[in-house]
């Protein structure tokens, strides 16, 4: 088997004690491209602003022009009772509201195991 001859090139890149910082890549932009980027960002901001203003105006118009929603007409018992001849109305109302006279007396909750 043929022996490889060791060679120490002793180059600075291969010496671990000497770390040479990598060269930073410098992107060079031409002034035209920078101008384009600035203009593009201004246009983008203006577009955003116009969108916000449009939305705000649209919502303000909405609050002014409220579309009337259909309401359901409920027949109130009082109105219904108004059809009853007036001499009988108060007595009828009393009869109709009889459940309001039910007792409002909560039952006592007591522990019968106290003392055991």
């Amino acid at each position, binding site marked *: 088997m043929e022996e490889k001859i060791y060679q120490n090139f002793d180059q600075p890149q291969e010496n671990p004690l000497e770390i040479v910082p990598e060269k930073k890549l410098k992107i060079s932009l031409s002034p035209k491209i920078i101008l384009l980027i600035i203009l593009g960002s201004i246009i983008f901001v203006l577009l955003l602003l116009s969108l916000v203003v449009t939305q705000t105006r649209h919502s303000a118009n909405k609050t002014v022009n409220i579309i009337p929603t259909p309401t359901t007409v409920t027949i109130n018992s009082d109105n219904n009772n108004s*059809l*009853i*001849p007036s001499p*009988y109305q108060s007595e*009828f109302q009393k*009869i109709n509201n009889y459940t309001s006279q039910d007792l409002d007396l909560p039952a006592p909750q*007591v522990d019968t195991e*106290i003392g055991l």
Partner: protein
Amino acid sequence: MWLLLFLFLARPIFAQKFTDLYTQYRTDYLYQRDQYQQNYSNYLNKKNIYLQYGTTATEKDKIDATKAVFLSRNSLLKDYLMALRVALNQNSNYSDNTTDIQTKLQDNEKWLDTQNQLIPDLNSSIALSNWVQTFKTHHVSIQTIANTALLQYQINLRLNTLDNIEKLANSAQIDWTDTYNNQSETIKSLFSEAYALTQQVQREDEFTDFYPEAKDYLNQSDIKLKNLISDLRSYLVKKGN
């Protein structure tokens, strides 16, 4: 002339007195309920301390707290029965059972009063345990009469409504005898069935609550009563046109 004036004035005064008395008893009852809850909380606290340390001093504290909660529990029940008894004065003429129920309520109030005179003399855990057994047995009859009174109050209110319906129909000269009589009989039979549940024999040591079942009958009677009121409205409206 003076007699007529007196009679004219006497009726509203009586009505006002009833409402005031009931309101007063109800307020007393609610106050007593708060007192009971405070004493009950204190009792639980003292009981836990006694269970933790088991000393003579902590046992004495527990006995005192137990006596205090017994006293406030009895007062609470008594105030509840009193409020029910006074409430039953309203529309009491519609049922013969009412007076009997009021008498039983009063008997139980007296029993609770008597017990509150005995409780301060109970000074040992054994004496307290014996009293608890006496109370538990009597508590069944307290619950029975309280729920019976509550039910009777509601029956009387509905009987009064039935009577008012008939009176209004008569004063408006409405001819609906058949409709009224049929409905009225059905409603009254539901009241009878509800009341019959209150008469079932209770076990000595455990209360069987009949009220929810009885309340079902009352709810059925309410549906029929509302229908009758609706019919009356139709007749009255027709009368007005």
